[in-house]
């Protein structure tokens, strides 16, 4: 089967010709996924030249319709050949799938009921195109910093203290620590942590194992035991949908966050990003032994025992859930936050820290997304694959490499330096 795509406005028309059997249905599914990824959420399929359709073909059409509808898009088929029309009638799929192209009129964008958008506008910073949705902000966001990264690295004490931090629906966080409390696990099974809207996930000790996670349910609220980390509490008042002006180009995480901050006029920010990955670059702790060995832990080959990092991009075309903190005024930040942040660019005042949880690819619907319900569905219906500390790899010999994104959504909220608290041991 051959698939020819034509577009007019935001409508994508797919002309199929040949035999729509099981073999072609694979090609069709891939083609639909590829189109959805490229941002086509209104798809009309012309079956005029399809001389045969099997149940596999019908299944692919029904599945495509379901996928596109969950993205709040529009899907239909028209102009079926005599054979296909007969099959659609007999299988009673006719009413569900067939649309008259005249009915496939200008798609009315539906604002979701879950997010009350008070304003919407478009902007462009550098080569990043943005669509910004805002809701009136309520309470300013609070930020707490637990432990001290620098103190840990130069730790003279043999035992590191952890901070039990609970993560309910309106909290976000990232750090190094464990889901299981120290005493329960016996051995210190620490790793990278990511917390978003009542979910906490922790990296596995090796990249061949699965990360663990806990989610708010009923009376239960997950707790992260931070060696060090940050917790943000409150609501995001801005959601920025982003993509690169050149569909072939990629946006680095640092670039995206800095563009969003610049557009919003924010100096210090908390953010959550959901994005289609072009490739992630990050490290994972296998187990914690810095406290015992100090600086020499970073020598080769010793570092290989406890830290997993490979200077290669991974997870292309996966969905990344990223949480981070960034500032443009590094020097004025509280010292615990300072030691938590790393340079985002050559300018030492621009710093940040980001962790990512990686999931299989899932298309994001257009416009607004309800972060909480999306993330909970993600954990329930999908399988978390990895949790990483995203790194900007800058070395004199190799230059600069960083995690890259294709497109997605970034929730961003200013953090007032006066609302930052340090919680030390």
């Amino acid at each position, binding site marked *: 089967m051959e698939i020819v795509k034509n577009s007019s406005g935001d409508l994508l028309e797919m002309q199929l010709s040949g035999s729509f059997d099981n073999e072609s249905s694979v090609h069709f599914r891939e083609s639909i996924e590829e189109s959805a990824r490229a941002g086509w959420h209104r798809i009309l399929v012309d079956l005029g030249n399809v001389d045969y359709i099997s149940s596999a073909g019908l299944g692919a059409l029904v599945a495509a319709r379901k996928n596109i509808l969950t993205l709040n898009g529009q899907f239909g088929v028209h102009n079926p050949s005599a054979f296909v029309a007969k099959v659609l009638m007999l299988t009673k799929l006719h009413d569900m799938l067939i649309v008259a192209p005249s009915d496939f009129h200008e798609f009315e964008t539906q604002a979701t009921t879950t997010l009350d958008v008070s304003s919407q506008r478009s902007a462009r910073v550098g080569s990043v195109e943005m669509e910004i949705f805002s809701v009136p902000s309520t309470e300013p966001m609070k930020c707490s910093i637990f432990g001290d*990264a*620098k103190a*840990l*690295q130069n730790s003279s004490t043999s035992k590191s203290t952890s901070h039990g931090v609970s993560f309910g629906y309106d909290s976000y966080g990232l750090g*190094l620590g464990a889901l299981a409390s120290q005493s329960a696990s016996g051995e210190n099974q620490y790793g990278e942590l990511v917390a978003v809207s009542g979910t906490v996930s922790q990296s596995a000790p*090796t*990249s*061949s194992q699965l990360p663990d996670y806990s989610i708010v349910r009923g009376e239960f609220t997950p707790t992260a035991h931070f060696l060090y980390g940050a917790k943000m509490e409150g609501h995001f008042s801005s959601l920025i949908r982003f993509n690169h002006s050149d569909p072939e180009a990629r946006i680095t995480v640092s670039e995206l966050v800095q563009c969003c901050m610049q557009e919003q006029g924010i100096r210090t920010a908390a953010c959550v990003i959901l994005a289609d990955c072009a490739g992630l670059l990050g*490290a994972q702790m296998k187990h914690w032994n*810095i406290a015992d060995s100090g*600086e020499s832990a*970073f*020598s*080769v080959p010793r*570092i*290989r025992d406890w*830290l*997993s*990092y*490979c*200077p*290669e991009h991974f997870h292309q075309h996966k969905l990344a859930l990223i949480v981070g903190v960034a500032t443009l005024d590094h020097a004025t930040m509280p010292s615990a936050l300072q030691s938590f942040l*790393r340079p985002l660019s050559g300018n030492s005042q621009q710093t940040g820290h980001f962790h990512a949880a990686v999931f299989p690819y899932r298309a994001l619907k257009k416009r607004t997304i309800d972060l909480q319900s999306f993330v909970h569905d993600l954990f329930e219906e999908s399988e978390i694959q990895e949790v990483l*500390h995203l*790194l*900007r*790899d*800058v*070395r*004199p*010999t*190799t230059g600069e490499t960083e995690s890259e994104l294709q497109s997605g959504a970034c929730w961003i909220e200013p953090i007032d330096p006066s609302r930052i608290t340090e919680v030390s041991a």
Partner: protein
Amino acid sequence: MLELKGIFKTFFPNTPNEVRALRGVDLRITPGSWVNIIGTNGSGKSTLLNATAGTFPLDQGEIILDGNRITRWPEHRRAKLIGRVFQDPFSGTAPSMTIAENLALAARRGQARGLGFALRTGWRNDLRDRVAAMGLGLEDKIEKPMDTLSGGQRQSITLLMAGLVRPSLLLLDEHTAALDPKSADKIIELTGKFIAENQLTTIMVTHSMQQAANFGDRIIMMHQGSICHDISGLQKSRVRASDLIAKFDEVRRSDQLDESVADMLRSNYV
């Protein structure tokens, strides 16, 4: 019981071709257990097998097999206790001698093999039964020379020879690697049956993750002359070939962590 304690071996020391093949291997294998050794090329897995068999002297370390300190025993003396099957189906047998003669030689392993030995009728029948038990239909060919057999048939005979006098330890060095896939499957099935029936303590070096996952009760993964993973018990019973491949990828990833990366991580990670 096999014990390897602090085994070191460097080939061509102090030359440009120096290879630090084994860098401190400690391994304890309980009687009756079947250990599979996997690892990348040059990881030291075959060297470890050859060190056990006595192909070369060790630089350092000790080998104890069933209470015997065999570290300084020459290869032929260790052969009394150790049965071996090699990768090359042409090794380990005498090609111009018949199957029966090869088996008769193997049956006298560890004993004096003077010129006086002969194939008596009683023996012959016993050997025929053993060959028949393998289910390969080779029992009618035992008077044929070894070099008339296919690779798979030879490996099955070699396997039988290795276990004819019950060895304290059976070493399998990628013994299915040179065979076609169908023969390889047949030989590995036969190997499993043979080891189980005779309750042999076995070390098998293999490149096949499928074999490593499906057979045996422990997997040792080697990297750069030492053991980097030791999978046994419940973990072994759950392991899939894809998990082992993922572990290889992990090793490959960690190899890329060099000094310059370590410097970057020192200032960026914690």
